[in-house]
């Protein structure tokens, strides 16, 4: 009887129409299996094999989660799919007791969680990656890259399979062998890309890594020897961090437009909460309040689990703050207060749900107004130029407008182009008492390629005094074509709005 723990385990994926080994554990490797072997052959070699299906999506997610966790060491973490991570630890290592201690702490923590880790520190990212392919725990000082990677097999470079087999066939077994050849020969045979890779591995040049997240402008963080789990302690610490962040930003006259709070749980899970603001925030109380709103409104509340051991607050977007002198003008104060209120509401229910309105240059009623995010367009909205109403006229546009015009049933119209005498909307029949119209609104043919029909709008009042804005879609004779029997097509009527 075999259990998964003592049986060799492999992960298989379908490649070239056959199930092939995609990954395997040490036991399976010792049994003589290798990546790329068809499953049928593997079973023949090792009948007690435990087989799992590959799940690249879950793999990517796990890699991302690990990258999240690695954020605690450096803000610059780059993915190297399918299973690598680059950490740019420039200037970070001393915070963790030096490079050796940092490497041990990363490897130790990940190993404890059940991952097999191979890590290395080197001057260039490619060099470090090449080292990890062979052995874990190496730290290579600047200038010693060539010596370090020289004895390694060429496969450690991570180049294409075709290139590696080409090198082998040429008798170049180690990276040192390849490096000894003249560069132009290598380039002529294997391409410039491979030469660049080789040079980077030898430390003769460096390719930048592409971090997952842009480097925040300001970061403050607090580590806890004893994990914190209670809401109160978390709130107090967040306030303290907010003060530190504001102090740091204040020195350079900056204010935060986007704030991120990351909570690193002891079990490795990381939760990041983002708050956007409409204008630069320069007060710790404001940051405090925004996060309180956001945390209160979370659908899945912050779960401390066994506690957070690191809380980080970063300002990922900042702006220069123009210090305004407070005068007696109440307007400035009102605007500030309003912007703060909008930020608070947006933090709670989402920035897209708080809107201001901007007039648009179009005749189409449903597009005449653009609802824009209040956080970003408040200033534009307060200075928008709205079309003036005509004095002495009753309202010509309805107060309530349906986003999609609602169809109504019109039994007949006495004249084809005329208004209806009665209509049925939402199962209620309204008899028309007064009519004004039509107001003809043609669609924008230059945008719609002739699909939409011209509308004839009528302002009407029914027996109850309710006032509607209805329209007939399409013109007789012109747009509403007769059908095959020669009868004119019946127009469709809609109610588009309601007047007060």
């Amino acid at each position, binding site marked *: 009887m075999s259990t998964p723990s003592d049986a060799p385990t492999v992960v298989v994926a379908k490649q070239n129409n056959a199930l092939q080994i995609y990954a395997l554990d040490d036991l399976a490797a010792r049994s003589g299996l290798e990546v790329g072997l068809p499953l049928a052959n593997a079973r023949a070699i090792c009948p007690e094999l435990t087989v799992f299906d590959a799940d690249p999506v879950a793999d990517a997610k796990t890699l991302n989660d690990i990258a999240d966790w690695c954020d605690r060491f450096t803000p610059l973490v780059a993915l190297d799919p399918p299973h690598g991570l680059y950490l740019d630890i420039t200037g970070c290592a001393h915070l963790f007791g030096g490079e050796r201690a940092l490497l041990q702490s990363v490897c130790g923590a990940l190993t404890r969680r059940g991952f097999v880790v191979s890590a290395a520190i080197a001057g260039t990212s490619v060099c470090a990656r090449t080292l990890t392919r062979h052995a874990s725990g190496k730290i290579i000082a600047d200038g010693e890259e060539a010596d370090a990677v020289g004895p390694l097999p060429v496969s450690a470079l991570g180049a294409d399979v075709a290139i590696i087999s080409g090198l082998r066939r040429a008798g170049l077994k180690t990276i040192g062998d390849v490096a000894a050849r003249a560069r132009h020969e290598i380039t002529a045979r294997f391409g410039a890309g491979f030469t660049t890779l080789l040079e980077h591995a030898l430390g003769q040049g460096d390719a930048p890594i592409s971090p997952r997240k842009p480097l925040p402008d300001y970061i403050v963080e607090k580590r806890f020897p004893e994990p914190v789990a209670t809401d109160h302690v978390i709130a107090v610490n967040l306030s303290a961090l907010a003060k530190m962040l504001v102090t740091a930003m204040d020195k350079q006259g900056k204010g935060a437009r986007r704030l991120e709070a990351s909570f690193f749980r002891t079990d490795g899970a990381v939760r990041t909460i983002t708050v956007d603001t409409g204008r630069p925030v320069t007060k710790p109380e404001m940051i405090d309040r925004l996060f309180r709103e956001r945390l209160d409104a979370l659908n899945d509340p912050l779960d401390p689990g066994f506690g957070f051991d690191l809380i980080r607050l970063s300002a990922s977007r900042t702006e220069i703050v123009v210090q305004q002198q407070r005068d007696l003008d109440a307007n400035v104060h009102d605007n500030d207060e309003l912007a703060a209120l909008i930020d608070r509401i947006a933090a709670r229910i989402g920035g897209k*749900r708080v809107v*201001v309105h901007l007039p648009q240059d179009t005749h189409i009623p449903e597009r005449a107004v653009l*609802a824009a995010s209040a956080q970003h367009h408040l200033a534009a909205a307060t200075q928008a130029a*709205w079309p003036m109403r005509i004095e*002495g006229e009753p309202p010509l546009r309805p107060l309530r407008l349906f*986003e999609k015009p609602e169809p109504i049933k019109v039994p007949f119209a006495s004249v084809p182009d005329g208004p209806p005498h009665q209509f049925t909307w939402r199962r209620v029949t309204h008899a028309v008492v007064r009519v004004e119209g039509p107001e003809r609104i043609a669609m924008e043919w230059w945008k719609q390629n002739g699909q939409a029909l011209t509308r004839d709008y009528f302002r009407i009042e029914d027996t109850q005094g309710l006032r509607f804005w209805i329209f007939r879609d399409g013109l007789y004779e012109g747009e509403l074509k007769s059908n095959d029997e020669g009868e004119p097509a019946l127009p469709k009527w809609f109610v588009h709005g309601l*007047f*007060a």
Partner: protein
Amino acid sequence: MSARMSTLAQLRGRIERLEAGADAHALHRVALGHAEADATLCGGLARAAVHEVFAEGHQGAAATGFIAGLAGRVTSRRPLVWVRQDFSEIESGAVSMSGLVELGLDPRRLVTVRAADVDAALRTAADALACDALGAVVLEVWGEPRQLDLVASRKLTLAAQASGVTALLLRLAAVPQPSTAETRWIVRAAHSPPSAPWHAWGAPRFDAELARNRHGPVGRWIMEWKCDACLFSEPANSQPLSATPAHRPHQAQVFRRSA
């Protein structure tokens, strides 16, 4: 025993002070423009209080116009926050800025909050009411949600009193329930006055019933909103003094233009 009496006296004193605090803002009243209504309201609509406007489902637009008028009167060029539920927009249409312009109101100072549900709307309205930079907060609620009870109403009233911001509750498709509102209106659309067919008709006219007034009598008037002057007024044409259309349909026939 005397200790108990003194506690009672203390509590009474505290309640009196609270009540006095409530009345401090009551001095600020905004005239609506309709003489009789203003007289009934002792000078106009009180600021820093909650006012409710109820409407049946199909009268939503009239009630919206009425509450927009009230908001226009009380905000006096300060920002207005309009909180509405998603469902209300589906059911009775979105408040159109072009329509507000046509009513003579300024959409530049309007911030709309699109709350997903009643809970979010109520909470947002309470938050907004605490911000003293605003002129008014309109809370538009469809139907009769359980969350909008006496407690919620009291909360809104307290927030309004504390900040001096006027709260206007637009209750669409709802019937009046007990609340702590200062005034409660039931609004229906009123006919345009009978006139020659080529005359400009269709100025917003409301059959506004003041169903509750905490500090005075109630009443019912036909009000017309003057779009150019931005105030309510008596109907220009004095023929339909009382509200005929909703309850006496046989009289409504009189005004019908022979089709």
